[in-house]
């Protein structure tokens, strides 16, 4: 190729010089263009592959930004103006969910340092508190976030009750919420045993002793002994993996706490959020209804066990 360049014979050095000239031009032209392009990152292929919507101050892109994002799409594109007011919702449902995320994050970090065995569990906590960088902060945050989550769940339920938000068509979601509250308490309770200290040990002993008294299923419960229940086969034995709070109980608490209940709770949470949307978004603040406007229902009334509200 070089030989035919203007009919002149050129040496290797000339060829290299020519190519260098080309490369210089290439870098200058393309490079300039691409650096200019960086000033407008939304036009880059990289940006467009991640975000499907242009970041513009238009109603369309604002809506699409929420709708096309997997984390945000549980939200509607638009919400009732008054529903964004703190005084109606108190924000407790969202805070509960955020605390669940905080707890998952700190919990996973804690799991790196923890062995659910009688020999090591307590030592691991001492290690966390004294040697692991920020270990004490990590444990404290997990503990207090758990307490805070219980409070937030209760206040969320309190608010939903006071605004009558469990009424039609949100009955079922209220029930899902009640189960989520129970799961929150169980999550907190199973975590109590894990440090394997006196506090957790006796709290769980007191707690699981009640299971002994389950009617029919506990060895000390009404009709329990009649049904062949002993301390070695009753419901308490199943919870503890033994007749006393010991190594098996620690392992069971750990599995329930770190895997089983979070999984179950996540599924219920998915249903809970989904149903908030499907039942018509958050309940209000709705326009007030007057007593004089109560309609006397014609035909079959909305009975629990009969089909209702289909019309």
């Amino acid at each position, binding site marked *: 190729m070089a030989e035919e360049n203007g009919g002149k014979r050129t040496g290797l050095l000339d060829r290299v010089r020519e190519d260098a000239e080309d490369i210089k031009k290439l870098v200058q032209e393309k490079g300039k263009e691409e650096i200019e392009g960086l000033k407008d990152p939304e036009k880059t292929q990289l940006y467009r592959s991640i975000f499907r919507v242009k970041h513009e101050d238009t109603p369309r892109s*604002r809506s699409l930004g*929420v709708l096309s994002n997997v984390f*945000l799409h549980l*939200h*509607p*594109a*638009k*919400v*009732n*103006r008054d*529903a*964004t*007011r703190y005084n*109606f919702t*108190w*924000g407790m449902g*969202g805070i509960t969910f*955020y605390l669940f995320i905080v707890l998952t994050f700190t919990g996973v970090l804690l799991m790196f340092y923890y062995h659910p065995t009688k020999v090591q569990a307590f030592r691991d906590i001492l290690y966390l508190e004294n040697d692991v960088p920020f270990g004490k902060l990590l444990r*404290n*945050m*997990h503990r*207090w*976030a758990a*307490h805070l989550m*219980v*409070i937030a769940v209760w206040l969320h339920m309190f*608010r939903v009750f006071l*605004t*009558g938000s*469990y*009424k*039609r068509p949100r009955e079922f979601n*209220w*029930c899902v919420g009640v189960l989520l509250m*129970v799961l929150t308490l169980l999550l*907190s309770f199973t975590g109590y045993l894990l*440090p394997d*200290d006196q*506090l957790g040990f*006796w709290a769980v002993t*007191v707690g699981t002793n*009640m299971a002994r*008294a*389950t*009617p029919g299923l*506990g060895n*000390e419960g009404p*009709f329990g002994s009649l049904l062949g229940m002993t301390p070695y086969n009753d419901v308490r034995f199943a919870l503890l993996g033994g007749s006393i*709070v010991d190594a098996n109980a620690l392992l069971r608490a750990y599995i329930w706490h770190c895997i089983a209940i979070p999984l179950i709770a996540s599924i219920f949470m998915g249903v809970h959020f989904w149903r908030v949307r499907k039942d018509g978004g958050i309940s*209000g*603040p*709705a*326009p007030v209804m*007057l*007593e004089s406007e*109560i309609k006397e229902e014609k035909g079959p*009334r909305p*009975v*629990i*066990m009969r089909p209702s509200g289909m019309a």
Partner: protein
Amino acid sequence: MGGDWHQLWEIASAPDNVPIVAMLFLVPFYVWYSFRQARANDDLIEKLEADPAAAKTAHRKTQPYHPKWEREVHTWPYLMRIEFVAAILVTVLLMVWSLTLNAPLEEPSNPNVTMNPAKAPWYFLGLQEMLVYFDPWIAGVVMPTLIIIGLMAIPYIDANPLGNGYYTYRQRRFAIWTFYGGFIGLWVAMISIGTFIRGPGWMWFWPGSTWDAERVEYAVNRNLDTIPGALTGGLFQINGSWIAHLMPVANRAYAPILARIIFGFFPIAIYFLVAAYLVYLVMNSTEFARRIFRRMTLLQIVTTDLLMVLMLALPVKILLRLIFRIKYIWVTPWFSI
């Protein structure tokens, strides 16, 4: 003021008790906060109820309103920014809390050294407190189950169509009082008793007294069936002497047990009947209440009444136990209530 107030401070400042101390402030705050909005709505409702013409065109909300404002706003940024700010505030709160207060860690677990008092986590202290008043199968199993079932039943038994999605008091008096009674009057109150008042041996220590692990309490707890005998100086003892005559000689030893079973059944049955009727009266106490009551199905009425009667049994038993020192009302060989 005399007394050991340092003891109260020690309980209130125990790291694991911070949440319930916080609840003592948060619950009244949110009660006030909700009542303020309920009152605003109730005033608006009263005004519209008096003026049907205005009711047709009025903006039926107490939130700030301008006809030119759009009814809906974009989630991004108007809702998302609130969520982000809330997340940041909660994180800051958690950070400060975690930096200033350490999670408790006691001695390594030791089955041979009993903690005194051995307390459940604060959110279960209500259930533990119930153990004083009921046998474990009721306090630890039946009651929690009933609480869960009762809560889940609420949407299906509340036949009042008003107050759906806004704060109100006047339109939902019965529902709101029931929930306040259950949530604040029983649940939060019993947790507070369990936290602040129950000391070593789960004994009752008034705030201001020292938790003395050596204290011995001489409390005579009686069963209801011993009371007729005690009151009449042994004249009307529940000893089954009158049934014994009807029984084969070989079984006469069981007569006192049988007599107690029969005797104990009646107070329970009478309580159920009287309480159920009282609940019925309350559910029909006003014109509006009667109107809602008429809308209810039989299943809704029976369920509501039964759940209310079961819930009221708790304060009744608390009073019987704390004031009259009565342990069991109904004693049988299989269960006691």
